[in-house]
């Protein structure tokens, strides 16, 4: 574990009037650093927050953006919400699966990409829309879906 995590935890605990509120911000921050939240990390976070590991694990597992398995360098979320579906998101997902040779929910063996479904991303005006490391991209024409993968994105 990195020593700065302790510093972050203290910072965040101070930022919120109730220290417990610092849990999710801390998880976000550490995930950005580590890419995902291993059980060791959750254990460490529990320790830093003065909470039980059970508690932290239970919270983390509730939220789809806390990754409890390793993810690729680029996490591609394809919105499958109704508006995006009407605009062809099925096809976008299909093309990406073909291109990457993986199914939705999986990570390429080289660790470059993780392909995930997203529920309505509140960007239906850009339908069909996707996020690469949570940066919006859209509208994505199915024929240009592959371009999504080479998109330069800032680290989230």
């Amino acid at each position: 574990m990195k020593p700065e995590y302790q510093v972050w935890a203290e910072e965040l605990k101070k930022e919120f009037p109730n220290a417990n509120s610092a849990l999710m911000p801390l998880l976000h921050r550490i995930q950005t650093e580590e890419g995902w939240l291993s059980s060791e990390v959750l254990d460490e976070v529990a320790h830093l927050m003065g909470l039980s590991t059970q508690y932290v694990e239970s919270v983390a597992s509730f939220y789809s953006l806390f990754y409890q398995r390793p993810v690729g360098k680029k996490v591609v979320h394809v919105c499958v919400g109704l508006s995006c579906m009407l605009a062809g998101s099925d096809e976008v997902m299909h093309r990406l699966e073909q291109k990457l040779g993986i199914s939705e929910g999986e990570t390429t063996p080289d660790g470059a990409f993780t392909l995930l479904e997203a529920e309505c991303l509140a960007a239906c005006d850009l339908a069909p829309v996707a996020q690469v490391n949570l940066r919006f991209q859209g509208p994505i024409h199915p024929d240009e879906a592959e371009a999504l993968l080479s998109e330069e994105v800032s680290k989230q």
Partner: protein
Amino acid sequence: MSQASHYLLRNHDIENIDEMAVYRAHGGYEALKKALNQYEPDALVELVKKSGLRGRGGAGFPTGVKWGFLPKDGRPRYLVVNSDEAEPGTFKDRELIEKNPHQLIEGMIISSFAIGANQAYIYCRGEFLFGYETLVRAVREAYEAGFIGKNILGSQFSLDLFVYRGAGAYICGEESALLESLEGRRGNPRLKPPFPAVAGLYGMPTIVNNVETISNLPPIVTRGAEWYASMGTEKSAGLKIMSVSGAVNRPGNYEIPLATPLRSLIDDYAQGMKPGYRIKCIIPGGSSVPLLMPDQLDTPLDYESIVKAGSMLGSGGCIVLDDTVCIVKASHRLIKFYREESCGKCTPCREGTYWMADVLERMEEGLGDANDLSLLMDVADNISGKCFCPLGDASIGFLVSAIKHFRDEFEAHVTEHRCPLGAKVYDTANN
């Protein structure tokens, strides 16, 4: 139709209004000064009551009335702004926080002053990374300018404002689940009563309002309650942002006076259907509401009229389904959304959405049988009114109306064992 001026989506008129300097150059934070200088907090609550502003988060509860529920017992109070927008078809709050964040912040400061809160929170949906960053920056700017912090503009009023990021859970848009999440817990809805106004964040009286609701505050303070109430109808006053998506020429957010006809929203604002597409049906207020049929296009978009027409204004997410859309596929997609997003606390929602999604999937694949339709209706009935929070009921709103209006199409899937519209069924390994 182009609109001369916007009051909420001011970014449509003014470039870079997300920057403090630009926002101020166009009258930004003047409403705050006015509120602090010319109003007592109670008078602001009155002003909001008189304006007729209703919550834009979905339920349409009168905002001033809600503020009036706060017990006057000297305990700390909180304002929490709900920016968890995830109701399918709704994307107005995202635009507001990304493009016009200072108006929300100004509205929050005014609202906090009005209700006597010295701490305010924005709960920002986890997926809105850019919106979150924008808010964080804008809040910093507001602190630097002295609009947030101690003794704001010499008024003795102090406020701290926190931006909090969710992590992917639709249910956290429900206000009590939101508060749980804000306290660092799983986003399970809380038992009510007590309502947040009595025991909310950290057990203290709390007002939860939607981004759009609060963004209305600066123009209302600047222009007055009468101005606001002069738009719309008596019961549905003012402006509403409608998010339009589907096969229209110009999908996007439109700020309309309430009671604008649905037809005008689609034809004038969104510039009509794309060539070759016709309207099959419309979801007027986000995925949780029953659909409207093309013959109901003259329905005025106000809370009461839409209810009369059999649906709800909800969050204002207007999804236009065109005639190429398979109703079973659309229903399946929406039910799957609720299945994915059910928090799992209560039985009917957790199990019922799972069941319905499976039945619809089978139907869509042509594997349905004769009993499936009545089964779906009965499962929906067993969910209806029996769940812990409104998500369960929301999950069946569209489906039940779809079966009512498009029974033939559902039945055709079962009898013909295929989609009569030839909709493609995608089969991903993990669907």
